[in-house]
């Protein structure tokens, strides 16, 4: 009797089926994750005729809508559209000024609400702080009750103080002016010092802070309120450079106020005069009090 082929043996057929399933899974487990682009490519390939036909139909429909019978009517419509476009451009030019002012006003309104005292709003007339003995000229003076040494701020931070007052205008000494000085405090280390202007616009230095203090770059700088010009806690700028000097710490501050694009400013009310003499003198002897 001729032996039966191994392929016809049901046991072998089961073994082959099991082996196929097993190795099929094995291949899929190891290579399945790499087949995603192949599947996508295949789907895209078989979608090509549909995409082609759809594009043709859409183009035909668009061209049919665009087709114009009367050339004069089309030219008239074109002229109308051109005129409308020009008008819209002009309107946008007109509105751009108002938009900028509106943005600034929203910014300032938020600041005005957050501060606990009444601020006077002034407008910058000229900004020639780069010139020698220059400064920022504002549109208010004695006519609105401004006095020397009133603080000036903007939405971003402290700007400076009033240097001189005219009848209807005033000159503001900015914080980065070489002869400006303001009492400040560092946010993290709580160290107090005096901010002085530097020779670089937009930068200032802090004096009289000990080398022992731990100052970090990026630390915010606030007004300390000791100079009786600004209330404590107003943002002045951020520390941009720190290095220990021979006697004190060399600290450079990048001022927060954008001095190049100042528009509307606020004037802080003048501080009330002190009712007590802070220069303490030794008390008189008791025996001499009665004689006086």
């Amino acid at each position: 009797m001729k032996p039966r082929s191994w392929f016809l043996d049901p046991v072998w057929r089961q073994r082959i089926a099991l082996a196929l399933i097993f190795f099929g899974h094995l291949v899929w487990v190891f290579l399945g994750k790499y087949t995603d682009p192949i599947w996508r490519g295949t789907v895209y390939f078989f979608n090509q005729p549909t995409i082609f036909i759809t594009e043709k139909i859409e183009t035909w429909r668009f061209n049919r809508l665009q087709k114009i019978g009367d050339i004069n009517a089309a030219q008239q419509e074109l002229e109308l559209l051109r005129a409308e476009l020009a008008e819209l451009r002009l309107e946008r030019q007109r509105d751009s000024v108002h938009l900028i002012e509106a943005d600034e006003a929203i910014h300032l309104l938020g600041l005005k609400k957050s501060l606990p005292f009444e601020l006077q709003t002034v407008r910058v007339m000229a900004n020639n702080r780069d010139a020698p003995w220059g400064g920022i000229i504002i549109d208010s003076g004695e006519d609105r009750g401004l006095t020397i040494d009133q603080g000036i701020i903007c939405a971003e931070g402290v700007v400076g103080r009033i240097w001189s007052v005219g009848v209807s205008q005033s000159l503001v000494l900015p914080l980065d002016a070489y002869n400006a000085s303001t009492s400040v405090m560092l946010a993290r280390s709580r160290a107090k010092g005096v901010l002085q202007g530097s020779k670089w616009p937009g930068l200032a230095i802090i004096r009289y802070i000990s080398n022992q203090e731990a100052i970090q770059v990026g630390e915010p700088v606030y007004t300390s309120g000791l100079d009786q010009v600004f209330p404590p806690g107003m943002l002045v700028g951020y520390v941009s450079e720190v290095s220990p000097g021979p006697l004190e710490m060399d600290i450079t501050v990048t001022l927060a106020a954008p001095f190049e694009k100042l528009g509307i400013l606020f004037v802080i009310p003048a501080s009330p005069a002190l009712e007590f003499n802070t220069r303490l003198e030794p008390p008189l002897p008791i025996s001499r009090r009665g004689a006086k």
Partner: protein
Amino acid sequence: MSSRPANHLRLLLIILFSLLLMYFLAPWPAPQAVVHVFIVLGLAPELRNSLYCGLLAASAGWLLESALRTYPVMGGTAMGNMVCALLLWYSLSISPPEKPFSYYTQLVLAVIIHTIVVRFFVNIASGPHVLGYGWQWSLVLLPAWGALTWRFYSPPHMR
């Protein structure tokens, strides 16, 4: 091929019921893992031949992966299941345990190996994934589901 006797109809019904149960237990991963292990290591090796054993183990793996939304459906579980179920099937065929204790010992080893192998294949198929506590629940509840499969498994002296 070995041909260990089994009550076909009852086993088939339990397999179908367990597969459905495993699918619908997807919101509760711990019980689902126990049912999954029960199918792969308890029921699949009880089938008459290795082809059915491998097919059931693979089906349970694919079903588990498709039942869980965040689990990668790349066949890693099916592959691991097949390897472990066939190994246990072969082990039971060449050295059939005659007492429940030795049977349970084999099942404990099989659960641990199954956890490692499935994790390995899922890692290869679809990248790293979280290993849950299902395998620990399977070990804790082994006396329950192991006793059930012992009833289907007929030791040589009881045939």
